């Protein structure tokens, strides 16, 4: 009869199956929390122990339950082997648990525990062999006369082994945890866990020992058919607890707790932990630094000594912008207080605070900067707008200037301080090519230009230039320009060789700047035409002057001759009468004849004088080619001087291109006469005198009343129109009679129109007259244009 080592209770078998499943699932369960690899070997060992134990025990329960086994039979041997395998598992349980506790609590493992474990395993193998071969060796073992294993050798012997190799380890592990709980100043999570762990650990250990050892012994093994069954199941809980403990305690550095701890240490906001009485128990480094204190100074101080605003230490609340004085500095804090519950019975109060004075300060600065930046952006936009407007203006004025310069009717250029061409208008480029960005050789630069550039004196002078054709075309670029002196020009004028001479008005104008030398503007105006015209005008004036002097002389002489003619006529007449009545042979007859001869001689010499004067006059009056508008201008100017205030004179539609051949003085006289008469006609009532000049072609002869016929041809038509009194038919008939006048005595002799008529005749010119009483008179003079080409 043997001891029953395995039970055949179906409940136990079912429990064993469940336990095996749980044990196999155990690594997966742990792996969900943290990688299996990170678990220490002791945990793996625990799992393997449990698996072996559960498995071998289950096999034993199924196949080797009961006590009917013969010593030496195969069943007996197999039963002992399975029991030994289970034993090899549980013999290491204590070691694994202790190992786990040591790793979790960072305690250095001592080598002798390992040795003891190996020794336990060897004892287990040997004892199994002994029980197979010779069980009586154990049951008969006599120690100091006492046979402890005689009654139930298996139970007592293995209980003894269990006490030696497993219980010490478990006690040591419990001690480590207890030591950790007592020693640790760290009142946070790990300590709490350790307390829970120790409680659970002790409870399960007690439970196993109670059911596996105390109750069987106390009941004298009534219905006892198994060994270490409770311990076997509780080992699962131990494994789970060990794993949990390890992950909670020894993994703290790599867990959320560790992260929070680090965060607490590294964060720049302050954290104060305090209990319900408001006593500060812990502060993070930031809190100490913000409050300028040390942990020793602050420990157990009241939270309200730091933040007086916190009155109820357990209430969760938020305080914004509270002012605190630290080291005589004003600081502003945002403080939040709340509770952290760690377990049912333990919790902390936390004050979380941040010094926002700097933040507020920075916020203020950022706000100001932001406003400044916005202002700056606005400024930039405004500046850009102003810039755009200016740019537009500058562009406009530049294009205006460019257009102006390029269309100037004379040559224009500018040079910079060094004499380099900066601008040239089209006229200048046409004349001497594009010289922009080049400078002229020194010998070509005029002294006036140098004066303007170096001294800032504006220069204006007239130059005479003759274009000399190059004799040899292969030579140089062609024409060269010879600059003449004034004397040379005058000489050329006298000789009539002015055709190839151009006259220019030159200007060098400095653009005055703070420093010499200056930029200059050059202007060159071709005034050849104006100068010629002026010369022509001067000549006409001179001619007119000479003519009028001669005419004056002629008039005086004419008057004199008229009187003298009459005198001589009378004398000759009386002589003739005397000769008629006197005796022919008397001496008086001879004398009177002589007197008549003398009078006749006087008459002849008088005629000679008159002829001389008239001849001279007509010689001087040789026709010239001239533009009649000049005469009209003169007449209008002359009229202005003597014009009554109610009469206006205007020259309209004056064609300045018309040139005629004729006597300048004659035309002047004619127009003056007509104009004077017209002004006279408007003296009473006022009015307007209009003189116009245009070219007119008569296709057929023009016949009008009161005037000779005008032949077909091309004429310069001069119209003198007044808004005066007009003339009646009788007056009109006689207007060209000498001494005919409607003027009162003293206002005029009435010779004007008649002499005008003669002058018209001399010039081969015709006239027409239209008049309406009370409305005015229009005289049209038709002066022939002989040569069309002359117009140009």
């Amino acid at each position, binding site marked *: 009869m043997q001891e029953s080592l395995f039970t055949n209770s179906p409940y136990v078998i079912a429990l064993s199956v469940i336990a095996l499943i749980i044990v196999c699932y155990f690594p997966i369960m742990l792996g969900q929390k943290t990688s299996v690899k990170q678990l220490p070997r002791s945990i793996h060992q625990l799992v393997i122990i449990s698996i072996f134990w559960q498995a071998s025990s289950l096999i034993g329960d199924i196949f080797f339950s009961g006590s009917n086994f013969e010593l030496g039979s195969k069943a007996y041997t197999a039963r002992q082997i399975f029991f030994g395998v289970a034993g090899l598992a549980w013999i290491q349980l204590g070691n694994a648990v202790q190992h786990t506790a040591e790793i979790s609590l960072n305690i250095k493992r001592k080598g002798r525990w390992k040795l003891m474990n190996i020794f336990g395993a060897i004892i287990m193998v040997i004892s199994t062999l002994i029980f197979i071969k010779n069980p009586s060796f154990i049951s008969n073992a006599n120690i100091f006369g006492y046979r402890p294993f005689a009654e139930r050798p298996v139970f007592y012997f293995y209980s003894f082994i269990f006490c030696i190799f497993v219980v010490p380890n478990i006690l040591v592990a419990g001690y480590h945890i207890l030591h950790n709980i007592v020693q640790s100043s760290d009142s946070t999570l790990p300590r709490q866990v350790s307390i829970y762990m120790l409680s659970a650990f002790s409870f399960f250990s007690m439970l196993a020992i109670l059911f596996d050892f105390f109750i069987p012994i106390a009941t004298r093994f009534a219905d006892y058919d198994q060994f270490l069954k409770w311990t076997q199941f509780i080992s699962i809980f131990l494994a789970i607890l060990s794993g949990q403990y390890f992950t909670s305690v020894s993994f703290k550095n790599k867990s959320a707790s560790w992260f929070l701890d680090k965060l607490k240490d590294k964060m720049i906001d302050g954290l104060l932990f305090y209990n319900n009485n408001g006593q500060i128990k812990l502060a993070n480094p930031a809190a100490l630094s913000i409050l300028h204190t040390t942990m020793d100074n602050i420990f157990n101080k009241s939270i309200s000594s730091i933040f007086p605003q916190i009155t109820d230490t357990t209430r969760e609340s938020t305080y914004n912008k509270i002012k605190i004085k630290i080291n005589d500095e004003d600081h502003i804090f945002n403080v939040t207080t709340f509770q952290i519950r760690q377990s049912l019975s333990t919790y902390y109060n936390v004050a979380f605070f941040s010094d926002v004075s700097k933040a507020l300060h920075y916020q203020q600065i950022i706000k100001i900067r932001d406003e400044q930046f916005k202002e700056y952006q606005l400024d930039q936009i405004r500046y850009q707008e102003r810039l755009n407007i200016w740019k537009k203006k500058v562009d406009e004025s530049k294009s205006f200037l460019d257009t102006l310069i390029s269309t100037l009717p004379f040559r224009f250029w500018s040079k910079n301080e060094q004499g380099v061409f900066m601008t040239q208008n089209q006229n200048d480029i046409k004349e001497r090519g594009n010289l922009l960005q080049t400078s002229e050789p020194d010998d070509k630069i005029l002294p006036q230009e140098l004066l303007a550039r170096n001294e800032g004196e504006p220069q204006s002078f007239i130059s005479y230039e003759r274009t000399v054709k190059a004799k040899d075309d292969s030579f140089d670029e062609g024409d060269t320009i010879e600059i003449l002196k004034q004397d040379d020009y005058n000489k050329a004028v006298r000789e009539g060789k002015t055709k190839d001479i151009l006259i220019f008005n030159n200007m060098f104008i400095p653009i005055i700047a703070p420093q010499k030398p200056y930029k200059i503007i050059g202007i060159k105006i071709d005034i050849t035409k104006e100068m010629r015209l002026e010369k022509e005008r001067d000549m006409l004036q001179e001619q007119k002057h000479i003519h009028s002097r001669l005419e004056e002389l*002629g*008039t005086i002489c*004419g*008057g004199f*001759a*008229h009187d003298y*003619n*009459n*005198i*001589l*006529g*009378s004398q*000759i*007449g*009386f002589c*003739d*009468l005397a000769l*008629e*009545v006197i005796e022919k042979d008397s001496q008086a007859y001879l004398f009177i004849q002589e007197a008549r001869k003398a009078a006749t001689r006087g*008459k002849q010499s008088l005629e000679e004088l008159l002829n001389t004067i*008239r001849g001279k006059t007509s010689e001087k009056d040789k026709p010239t080619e001239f533009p009649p508008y000049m005469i009209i201008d003169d007449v209008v100017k002359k009229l202005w001087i003597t014009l009554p205030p109610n009469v206006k004179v205007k020259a309209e539609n004056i064609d300045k291109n018309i040139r005629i051949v004729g006597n300048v003085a004659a035309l002047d006289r004619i127009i003056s006469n007509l104009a004077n008469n017209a002004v006279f006609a408007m003296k009473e009532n006022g009015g307007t005198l209009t003189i116009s000049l245009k070219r007119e072609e008569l296709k057929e002869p023009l016949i009008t009343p009161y005037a000779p016929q005008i032949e077909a041809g091309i004429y310069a038509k001069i119209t003198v129109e007044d808004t005066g009194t007009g003339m009646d038919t009788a007056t009109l008939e*006689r207007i*060209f*009679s*000498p*001494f*005919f006048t409607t003027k009162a005595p003293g206002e005029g002799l009435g*010779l004007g129109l*008649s*002499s005008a008529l*003669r002058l018209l005749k001399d010039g081969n010119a015709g006239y027409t007259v239209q008049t309406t009483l009370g409305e005015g008179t229009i005289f049209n003079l038709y002066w022939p244009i002989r040569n069309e080409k002359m117009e140009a």
Partner: protein
Amino acid sequence: MSTILIIDDDAQLNLMLKSALELKGYTVDTACNGKKAKSLYQKNSYDVIITDIIMPEGDGFEVILDLRRMGLSNRVIAISGGGRTSAEDYLATAQHFDVAAIFSKPLDLQQLRNKVDEIIKSHS
């Protein structure tokens, strides 16, 4: 008996012409300007009127035109010595007004007397 009026501002010429014509047996009146002449030829009837052109008051053209209106232009002889312009101009103008004859000064007495005779004969 034929009557002749001589109009000239030169008294000596008037006297000379008057003498020359009186020698031929005409009755001669003289006037020194157109105005005085007008009163004479309006009062009396003359066979021939000899007038100078350029005169200070009432010139020869006025006289000629006046007489033309009276239908007497064929009895008028215009004489002129010229002045500021040549005598021919004035005489040409006078001729334009249908005078019987023109003479420039100094006068050829013989031709003048012949012309006077001719005019008188043509009217008788």
